[in-house]
């Protein structure tokens, strides 16, 4: 075990030690998590720079060797998660002011479980990490403040989806074990029905954790309905879904290649639907945590879209597109995880300074925030809205470039899937812009009402600003980062790859990302250089030329005095257009209550009634129906079979025993 292996082992064990220490003192748990995250980051960078390595190793209960270690694929996810955790752990030190250590305990345990499942070199330990992660994060959601029945039901939904996910992941792992004869992460060569079962179980099982359609309720509901703590939300939305993505990438890397064409097509379709639904619901969400949670659905959908394109390209033998789409998928995962962290942390900042989760009530009261918090939030929202030169812009560009090349697919029906998905992703890009402008505008940019009270949230701004800087950094440095994560793609593709990086015209070689051979080109570092050059001219003019006294005026309100109560645009009003346009998807309906509603004489004053415009998630209706049906069936069984009549119960046991005996006899 070399130095990196020791660091990695110390990191993983450190999280669990943090969980134990948090019982002594809350801060100790977060501080230990912070140190362990730094160690994890160092070992991940080491693995990407100098190749895979192994740390702690031991003999497993089934006689197979088990160990902690990082290869190209796991190193990438360790890198992404550790950056997130450094920020959330530092933030938690100031954020968590509860008297009970439960949140800190569950937090460290969740981090440790994710670290364990990412660094484990065999699938059994992966499963253990996976299940611990689900239980520990269930504990984090339970720590939410507010109405407890709401919190319990939200946490229960999370647990239900989480256990469904575990079941399917177990099926996938079992399938791999059957095919390879070992729990070790070794590729299986034979394709066939089992491989497809593993693929589907993995896609749905990990998709449940990633919150992709039609399981997206598992993502938004626990976060939005329970208003889970912000540090927990960030970990759930950024890294728990990242763990799901890791599992999906890992299982796919073990499955036979090239894959059947329909695998990619199914993945592309699910991804596109998730992208559209996530963006749509984000645009009409008024909850400071619900909105980022919906945006997570959109971003994880983008990962699936890129991955789906990659699988189709592999099946069609389009190697350049295959590699490019893989880079797009990984880069998208990284860009989203980091920007989303900043967004949830600023939601916590808004919560601390305005005591609300409602964007309508925020009304710019966070505007007087510390500069670091503002800048960090601006960077994160603009990145998620895909504005240059930030990370989200580069990843969105890469995914769209990959989609544009779906014309190269064969047969035609796959092109058609690509076409429809492209349209969905493009529409979603517009919708998510609305969502992000709303989040940013109504929290940090709006001029606050004179009457609004606001308090600063101490110690929370630093991590938000730092994450914002990282978002900018990985956006501008995208070409170098893409070359840096080439081992990851190589590890996934089971062979050497060439990073899609080059040069054009007078842009130096290696400064640009190339999509395909040749298709599109983007040079992320040149964008900020151009912006900086323009800004320098303007600043120079300001300094030496036309410096004029600053004039501050109130916003123009059509000649009326500005800022009167009830006369400012609400964030709800900002997105009502979308509610009405997309009413067929959102099931928008207007509910009127009060005097005079439905009365032909209502034209007579005084008009006084309440109007509520409601939107619904049709999938939630579906699941609610499923739960009701389940309840009905179980109570029917209860009254039918377990009715307390001994005779009926004995008959049931007899029938079941007979059935088992017959089955076993037939099998033998």
């Amino acid at each position, binding site marked *: 075990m070399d130095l990196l292996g020791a660091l990695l082992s110390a990191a993983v064990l450190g999280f669990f030690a943090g969980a134990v220490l948090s019982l002594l003192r809350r801060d100790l748990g977060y501080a230990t998590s912070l140190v362990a995250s730094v160690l994890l980051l160092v070992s991940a960078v080491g693995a990407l720079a100098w190749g895979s390595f192994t740390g702690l190793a031991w003999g497993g209960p089934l006689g197979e060797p088990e160990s902690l270690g990082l290869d190209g694929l796991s190193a990438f996810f360790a890198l992404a998660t550790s950056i997130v955790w450094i920020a959330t752990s530092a933030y938690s030190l100031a954020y968590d002011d509860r008297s009970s250590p439960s949140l800190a305990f569950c937090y460290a345990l969740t981090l440790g479980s994710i670290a364990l499942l990412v660094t484990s070199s065999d699938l059994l330990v992966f499963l253990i990490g996976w299940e611990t992660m689900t239980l520990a994060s269930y504990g984090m959601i339970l720590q939410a403040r507010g109405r407890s029945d709401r919190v319990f039901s939200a946490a229960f939904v999370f647990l239900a989806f989480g256990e469904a996910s575990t079941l399917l992941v177990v099926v996938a792992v079992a399938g791999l074990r059957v095919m390879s004869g070992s729990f070790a992460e070794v590729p299986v060569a034979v394709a066939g029905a089992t491989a497809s079962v593993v693929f589907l179980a993995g896609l749905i099982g990990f998709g449940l954790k990633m919150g992709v359609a039609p399981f997206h309720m598992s993502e938004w509901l626990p976060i939005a309905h329970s208003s889970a703590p912000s540090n927990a939300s960030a970990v759930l939305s950024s890294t728990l879904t990242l763990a799901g993505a890791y599992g999906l990438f890992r299982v796919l890397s073990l499955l036979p290649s090239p894959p059947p064409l329909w695998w990619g097509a199914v993945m592309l379709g699910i991804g596109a639907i998730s992208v559209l639904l996530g963006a749509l619901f984000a645009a009409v969400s008024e909850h400071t945590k619900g909105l980022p949670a919906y945006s997570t659905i959109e971003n994880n959908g983008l990962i699936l879209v890129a991955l789906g394109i990659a699988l189709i390209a592999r099946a069609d033998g389009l190697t350049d597109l295959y590699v490019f789409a893989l880079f797009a998928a990984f880069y998208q995962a990284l860009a989203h995880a980091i920007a989303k962290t900043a967004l949830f942390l600023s939601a916590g900042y808004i919560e601390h300074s305005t005591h609300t989760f409602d964007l309508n009530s925020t009304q710019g009261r966070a505007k007087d925030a510390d500069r670091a918090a503002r800048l960090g939030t601006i960077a994160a929202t603009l990145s998620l809205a895909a504005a240059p030169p930030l990370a989200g812009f580069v990843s969105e560009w890469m995914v769209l470039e990959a989609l544009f090349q779906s014309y190269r697919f064969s047969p035609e029906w796959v092109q058609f899937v690509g076409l429809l998905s492209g349209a969905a992703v493009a529409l979603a890009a517009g919708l998510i812009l609305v969502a992000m402008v709303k989040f940013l505008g109504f929290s940090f940019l709006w001029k606050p009402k004179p009457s609004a009270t606001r308090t600063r949230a101490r110690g929370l701004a630093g991590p938000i600003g730092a994450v914002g800087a990282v978002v900018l950094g990985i956006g501008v440095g995208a070409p170098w980062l893409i070359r840096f994560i080439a081992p990851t793609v190589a590890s996934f593709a089971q062979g050497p790859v060439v990073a899609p990086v080059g040069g054009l015209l007078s842009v130096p070689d290696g400064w640009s990302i190339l999509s395909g051979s040749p298709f599109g080109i983007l040079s992320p570092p040149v964008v900020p250089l151009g912006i900086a050059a323009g800004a320098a001219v303007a600043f120079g003019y300001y300094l030496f030329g036309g410096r004029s006294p600053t004039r501050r005026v109130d916003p123009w309100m059509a000649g009326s005095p500005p800022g009167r109560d009830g006369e400012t*645009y609400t964030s709800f*009003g900002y997105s*009502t257009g979308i509610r009405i346009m997309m009413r067929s998807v959102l099931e928008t309906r207007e509910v009127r209550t009060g005097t005079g509603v439905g009365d032909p004489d209502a034209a007579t*004053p005084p008009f006084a*009634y309440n*109007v509520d415009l409601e939107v619904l998630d049709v999938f939630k209706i579906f699941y609610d129906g499923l739960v009701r049906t389940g309840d009905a069936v179980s109570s029917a069984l209860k009254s039918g079979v377990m009715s307390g009549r001994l005779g009926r119960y004995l008959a049931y046991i007899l029938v079941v025993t007979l059935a088992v005996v017959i089955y076993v006899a037939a099998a033998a």
Partner: protein
Amino acid sequence: MRRPSWRVESAPAVGGVGGSRALAYVPDDGGFALYNDYAEGVSVLSTAASRPEDEPAVFWRADRDRVRPHTLAPATEIDGYGIFTFPYGPISMGVPESGRFDVRTYGERVLGLVPVGGFKSRRIRDAVVGRPVVDAALLVERMAGNFSAAHVSAFLAAAESAEAKEVPTAEYWVRGLAQELQRIYNHLHLIARVAEAASQNVGLAQTHALAEEVLRVQAEFFGHRWLFGALIPGGPARRLAPADRHGLSERLGHLAEEFERLWLLFLESRTFIDRIQSTCPVARSEAIRWGAVGPTLRASGVAWDDRLRIPVPPYDDLFVPLPQESGGDALARVTVRAEEIRASFLILEQILDRWAAAGTENEPAGTPVAPGRGIGRVEAPSGDLVYDVRVTAGKVDALQLRSPSRANWPVFAAGMRDAVFTDFHFALESFGFAFAETDG
């Protein structure tokens, strides 16, 4: 100063329309109440004191508090998640005059709307007090420039009635001529504004050209594009000698032809019709309940026109067509206006043709409603305009008016409920409002 207030009063059914409640705008001293029972064909004008106890009523009180912003329709108390008030105006793109609309909305849809006036007050109603009637008339015709003929005619009729003064019949004919010319101008102007809202650029330009032609005709024959000063008794010379009347008749014939061609083009434009069809609908019952007047009322299927119901010379001697529509939407209002342009051309033809019939004798004096107090009532382009004037020793003592805009604001507010923002301009322009005459 008291703020004007709306009050709900119990009253029997209004004009055959079901419902036990009617809107009352309770008058205070110096104001007058006006009650139109359109369905019964009765018009009652009375002071508050003389109103029978069981009389259903739609009342307006002259706004005492005109200078400060005040609501022109009943306030709405609509609430709900994300609902806010969007102040549109007084200085906004698309609000043609200084006036505000408080729009209650959750975005995109108008849940409730309240017009707010008082931004355009020039205190004309105060400025006329103490002035001789003729001087006051010069101020009154500036109440709203494009309605000057109607305002000054109503004012003069009220003042003459207050003083029990005989007026040469020819004066009435001149007023009729001027009013019909100005009606054509206003209806053309309204169609142009609706065309502008619907981005009908050719229609807009051609209609404006026609309206401009009417202004030039007014300038040529009355000495002023807006007819200022032209209707003062014994005022500036009007070029209405037989030869001039012949020339005017020819000019108007050309205009009528042009208009027919233009209107046909409008009717053929689907974009134009689509934008105004079913926009801001006002049902017949609503129109009656709120006391709508003018083309707005007639577009909702109520046949009422002061020129027919309260005829004064020259209308008592002429054939006055009564265009009527039943849709109640912006299309119906625009159609009624277009029909009224035709009707006005017909009336003008009759006036010019039978000019000599006016003769040289005087009209018998009207009866004052009270000593020294008279009511003047004309059908202005946008509807029934009423002046209530008190004259003492040849000088105006007090003046109140109920403009058609004032009467129609609540109708507009009611029609806009549950409309979308984009309907606003089509709806607003189809009524022919002027904040100027509301504020005075």
